Each structure stands twice: as structure tokens, then as C-alpha cells.
């Protein structure tokens, strides 16, 4: 077992994503995972607004949040019905 302070950046990323359930997302967990990511972006956006800095990152975070919201709506939409099954 490699101590955490000797983790490579890739190992750390793998661990962080695994803990967040973002390496393999189960289909019934997609909406929840999108909400989790939105939460992280929102926290960062608030930090940037509080610090009144990082205009480019702030705009990019706001755009990411908008993208995630639209994708969340799509994931939460009812599953399309196959016309051949009607």
C-alpha cells in the first residue's frame, strides 16, 4: 500500500473519483452524481464570487453549471418510449 503522501497525481485522481462514485456511474445514480458535481461547482463559484477574482474561471464555472443543469433535466426526463412497443 502506497502512503497517501506518495500518491501520484493519477492515483490521487483515481481515488478521489472512486470515492465520489464517478469512475463507473450506475445508470440509476446519474442524476445524483450530476447533483454532486453541481454542488462542487457551486461551492467553487461562491468562493470565486467572495474573493471577487478569477473572472475567467468564474465565467467558466457558471457555464459548466448551466451545462450540468441542462444535462440534469435530460437525465431526469422520462425514458423515451420505443414506438414499436406501443
Amino acid at each position, binding site marked *: 500500500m502506497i502512503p497517501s503522501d506518495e500518491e501520484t497525481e493519477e492515483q490521487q485522481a483515481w481515488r478521489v473519483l472512486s470515492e465520489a462514485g464517478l469512475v463507473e456511474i450506475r*445508470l440509476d445514480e446519474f442524476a445524483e452524481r450530476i447533483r454532486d458535481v453541481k454542488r462542487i461547482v457551486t461551492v467553487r463559484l461562491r468562493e470565486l464570487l467572495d474573493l471577487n477574482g478569477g473572472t475567467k474561471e468564474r465565467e467558466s464555472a457558471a457555464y459548466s453549471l448551466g451545462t450540468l443543469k441542462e444535462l440534469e433535466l435530460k437525465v431526469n426526463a422520462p425514458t423515451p418510449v420505443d414506438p414499436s412497443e406501443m
Partner: protein
Amino acid sequence: MKSSAKQLRREAEWPPEEGEVISFECSTGPETAILKQVRWGLVWRDFILVDGRVIPEHRISDCPQPRVWRKISEVTDHEREECEERLLSMARAGMDPRERDQSFWAELTQYLAYTYLRFKQAGSKVQDVER
């Protein structure tokens, strides 16, 4: 000894080439298929099969360790924006992101992973500086 020699050979020949048969894990168990293309996503490599399915590298059998992932800082603004546009286009075109191993699912999975790492790391750096 034999297995480490096999592993070294595997690493030297990685990733497999177009037309090769690859084994991977899918929701129903192990499977094999023909590889069409290997493509970098925002975080990891995706293996595109001839039948159109997209399998992340970490699900390919015998994938060498440690995994090779991109650093978040390597992804350009342009690349991220293009990915966001593709995702929104697929959503607006009525594609369903819940279709496992399809391109929308694969791209959304990587985008969520990338966005999480990007903003979590940025937040942690601020906290470190403030300490």
C-alpha cells in the same frame, strides 16, 4: 517471471491497434469485440468498438498499471468548451445519456469526472493557501 514478461510485452504494445480483438467488462460480464479507434477524453482514453460502443480504458482486460490519465491542467479551454457543446447538442437532439457504453454516456461520464476534479482541486488549492 513468465507473467511479468507477458506484462512487459503488453505494456510495450499498449494500446492495442485498430482491428484487434479486445476483452473488456460490460454490465453482463466479460465480452470481446473488435477495436475501431482509441481516443483521449478529458480524463482517460476511450476504446471505440466497431459496433459503436465506447468502453473506458480501465474496463479493458489486461490494461497496464498504473493507468495513464491526463492531468486536468492539460485540457485546454477550447477542448472543454467543445465537449460542453457536444453534450448539449446530444441532449437537444433527444439522445438518451442513460444508454450505457454509448457515446453520450461515455462523454457525460468523462465530463462529470473532469469537472469534479477541476473544481475540487481548485477549491482545495485555495484552502491550502488560506491555511
